[in-house]
């Protein structure tokens, strides 16, 4: 199952583009050479740290020779430019290739080792490289390094002029290229293998991922732009000093990586600016600066292992929760009349539950009651057609799940999961005084309905689900019960781009039309955390209990699906309902898609009413 929109269709595209535009325009505002110097260093360090993130964060491969790869790039540049007279512009890619070559050599001992041994062997390699470099002083200048390297030039224009503007854009271009490269690697099949080896090594190997080959590629890919960055650094500071082999350079890069957030790609880039400016701001404190940076590393590792990037994500989550809560609050005040009209005049009331205040539409009366439970990122108005068509014979009740529609947002940890939603349904049934309702659950609401019935706290007259595959074992059956598609990723994705929102709403109910426009609009009100937490808490539900309840056959039950539901694995459902002793019906509605009650209401009502009548007749007989 994979969902891979191209970069320009992800939520990160605009922030990245804006950040790039700001950085490109910054020299117009920032003319101070020292500030520009820090920015240039930030770009170069961002390249080094984010490249390191590929092996350390994504690969879980602690390559402590990463600083040495930078040094290899630096010395390759210095030696080829100074002694071979190579053009600096050719020396930069050459330095990248040299670093790749060295990384390949490093990879050979690393291939067979794990954990701490990787660290030790890479430290040894770095030391070996350092010793070799320092001992060849006739070429490398020993511990004092190679000095007075030529500046970068284009035509006759030296990049030192105009406040280092040439270096600024060279370093920025390097950062853009490096980030594009890393982004592509991380999202490629190779990138998946890298992460898979880190997280589930033996499973990945069993699935055919070659550990040796992947490690080799990881190290080589992380070396390419590190070496090139070393060359640009050499062209900029115009000295190749063996200091870059040392622990303090490594510690600086490590602090950038960890403070930014390992395995995030963007985190180290953001942190490169923060750390570079921070460490320059306290440069006057001498040894205290190093102490402060080290304390920072320890604090981050101990208390905030996600780093700066996790903080940014947390902020975003909070802002998005505020936005959705504000939208719901506004809608509660303003649009009530419109919603009641939509629901055939059924009055809307707010009910206080332990999972927040819940909006309920109830046509009232003492006819047999049907409780409707909507699906993921929908709202009670999805059942508008049922409220106008069926209210003659039934009392109709529908409610907005917490974080959906005009119900309030709730604590994601306790509320955004199927058992809590079932508690909400119980609270609604109790508060509205509904006796023995028939329950109709759609999609996620189907699971809520199943859980409600399996808990057995309130008596039900019958249960029908739609677009839901009953599960016995999670997550195995979840993977089998649905057609693995991007829809399943979206169902658990906290933030939608416009395109994703339209795609999800379109496939869950119907493509945007005047009729479905309300549901499309409502989708973006849903608390994104409701999707994410619900999906990660799939496994907390007592699925076997649901299945036992269904197989017991005491409760009238039916599955009414669109025959062409794009998300269900219809074979799974056929196998389940065809299995021995399965006592219930499986009804397929032609052209119903994922929401037959919305797309083909006439056919749906025929099947649904037949079920309801049979269930009520069975109850009367009992």
């Amino acid at each position: 199952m994979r969902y891979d929109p191209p970069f320009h269709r992800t939520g990160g595209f605009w922030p990245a583009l804006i950040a790039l535009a700001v950085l490109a325009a910054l020299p117009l505002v920032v003319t101070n050479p020292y500030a520009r110097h820090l920015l240039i260093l930030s770009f170069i360090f961002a390249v080094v740290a984010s490249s390191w993130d590929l092996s350390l964060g994504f690969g879980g491969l602690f390559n402590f020779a990463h600083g040495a790869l930078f040094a290899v790039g630096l010395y390759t540049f210095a030696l080829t430019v100074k002694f071979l007279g190579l053009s600096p512009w050719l020396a930069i890619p050459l330095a990248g290739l040299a670093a790749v070559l060295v990384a390949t050599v490093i990879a050979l001992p690393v291939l067979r080792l794990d954990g701490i041994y990787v660290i030790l062997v890479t430290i040894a390699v770095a030391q070996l490289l350092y010793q070799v470099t320092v001992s060849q002083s006739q070429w490398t200048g020993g511990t004092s390094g190679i000095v007075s390297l030529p500046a970068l030039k284009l035509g006759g224009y030296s990049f030192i002029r105009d406040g280092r503007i040439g270096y600024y854009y060279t370093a920025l271009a390097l950062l853009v290229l490096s980030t594009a490269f890393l982004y592509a690697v991380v999202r490629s099949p190779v990138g998946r293998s890298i992460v898979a080896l880190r997280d589930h090594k033996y499973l990945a190997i069993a699935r055919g991922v070659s550990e040796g080959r992947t490690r080799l590629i990881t190290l080589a890919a992380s070396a390419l732009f590190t070496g090139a960055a070393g060359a640009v650094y050499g062209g900029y500071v115009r000295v190749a000093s063996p200091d870059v082999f040392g622990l303090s350079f490594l510690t600086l890069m490590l602090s950038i990586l960890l403070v930014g957030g390992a395995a995030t790609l963007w985190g180290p880039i953001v942190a490169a600016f923060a750390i570079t400016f921070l460490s320059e701001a306290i440069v006057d404190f001498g040894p205290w600066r190093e102490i402060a940076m080290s304390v920072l590393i320890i604090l981050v590792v101990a208390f905030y292992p996600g780093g700066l990037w996790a903080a940014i994500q947390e902020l975003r989550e909070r802002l998005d929760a505020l936005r959705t809560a504000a939208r719901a609050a506004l809608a509660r005040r303003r649009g009530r009349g419109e919603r009641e009209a939509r629901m055939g005049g059924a009055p809307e009331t707010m009910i206080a539950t332990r999972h927040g205040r819940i909006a309920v539409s109830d046509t009232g009366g003492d006819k047999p009651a049907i409780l409707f439970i909507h699906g993921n990122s929908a709202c009670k108005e999805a059942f508008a057609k049922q409220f106008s068509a069926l209210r003659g014979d039934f009392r109709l009740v529908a409610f907005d799940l917490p974080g959906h529609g005009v119900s309030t947002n709730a604590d994601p940890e306790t509320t955004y999961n199927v058992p809590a939603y079932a508690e909400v349904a119980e609270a609604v049934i109790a508060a509205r005084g509904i006796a023995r309702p028939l329950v109709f659950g759609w999609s996620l609401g189907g699971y809520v309905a199943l859980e409600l019935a399996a808990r057995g706290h309130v008596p039900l007259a019958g249960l029908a689900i739609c677009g839901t595959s009953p599960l016995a074992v999670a997550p195995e059956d979840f993977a089998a019960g649905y057609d693995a598609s991007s829809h399943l990723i979206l169902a658990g994705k906290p933030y939608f781009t416009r395109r994703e929102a339209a795609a999800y709403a379109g496939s869950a109910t119907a493509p945007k039309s005047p009729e479905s426009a309300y549901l499309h609009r409502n989708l973006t009100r849903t608390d994104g955390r409701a999707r994410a937490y619900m999906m990660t808490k799939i496994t907390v539900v007592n699925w076997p209990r649901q299945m036992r309840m269904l197989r017991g056959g005491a409760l009238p039950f039916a599955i009414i699906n669109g025959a062409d539901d794009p998300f269900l694995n219809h074979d799974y459902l056929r196998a389940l309902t065809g299995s021995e002793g399965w006592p219930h019906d499986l009804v397929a509605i032609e052209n119903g898609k994922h929401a037959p009650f919305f797309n083909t209401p006439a056919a749906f009502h025929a099947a649904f009413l037949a079920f309801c009548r049979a269930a009520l007749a069975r109850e009367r007989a009992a």
Partner: protein
Amino acid sequence: MDLQSFVSILISGVALGVLYALMAFGLAIVWTTLGIFNFAHGAFIAVGAYLAWQFGSAAGLGLGYLPGAGLAVAAMFLLGVATQFVLVRPFERQKDIVLLTVITTLAGATILTNLLNVVWGPRMKQIEPAAGGELSFGLVHLRSQEAIMVVVVGATLAALAWFLLRTATGRSMRAVAQNREAAQLMGLDVHRLYALTFGLAAAVAGLAGIFIASIRFMSPNMGDDPLQKAIVVVILGGVARFTYSIYAAFVVGMIEAFSTYYVGLYWTPAVLFGLMILVLIVKPEGLFGRRQRSV
């Protein structure tokens, strides 16, 4: 090569081996017992030397060589316990504790080294050797300080061996090293033993620092080179038993002595690191260890 130079190489190899055994002991015992690699070990060596200088030398408190060294070693024990408490213990329950503690002990090393810089400044210092002059027995010539070192270190290692092999506490430490859960079920206080291990490692590192400071010069970074040597020793020896790293220390000492003579001073570190990489590739469990490849 005449016999005279061969013997002097041999002797310098033994002297180095003794020193390396002392430097590597702490690293090895922490690794075998806690299963982590303490990168602050080199900083411990430096701190021990500076404390001994502060307590013992005339420029410091002037307590004299032996009291100064004794106080420094005791203080190092406390520093080791504190380090374990701050840099290792918070991560004990985490799955990737090995990698996390690499990061925290590296940071700890930076902190200690820079604190030395803040307190005592970057100027070189030296601890006056306990004894000057040379000793000669036939072909054997060595500095008195080296002779003392060989004797003291030999005694220290013997005492440590006795402690680890014969006393209840030492046996408990080895039990925790072999199987933490089982040791815990037997009622051993794992945290206390971990702290004790770290303290012992730091104290021995401090002792090594005192010796280094009397045959070389002291600087805040004086622990960097010993740390690298200790890493080479521990890798070569393997972690199955702490005694392996003592054998390995002599192997490394000899290799270094002969390599300095034949290959040259500059290339010797490269030879050692090359050898270490070779061992890691061919026999990651160490020269003396049996095949047992887990982290």
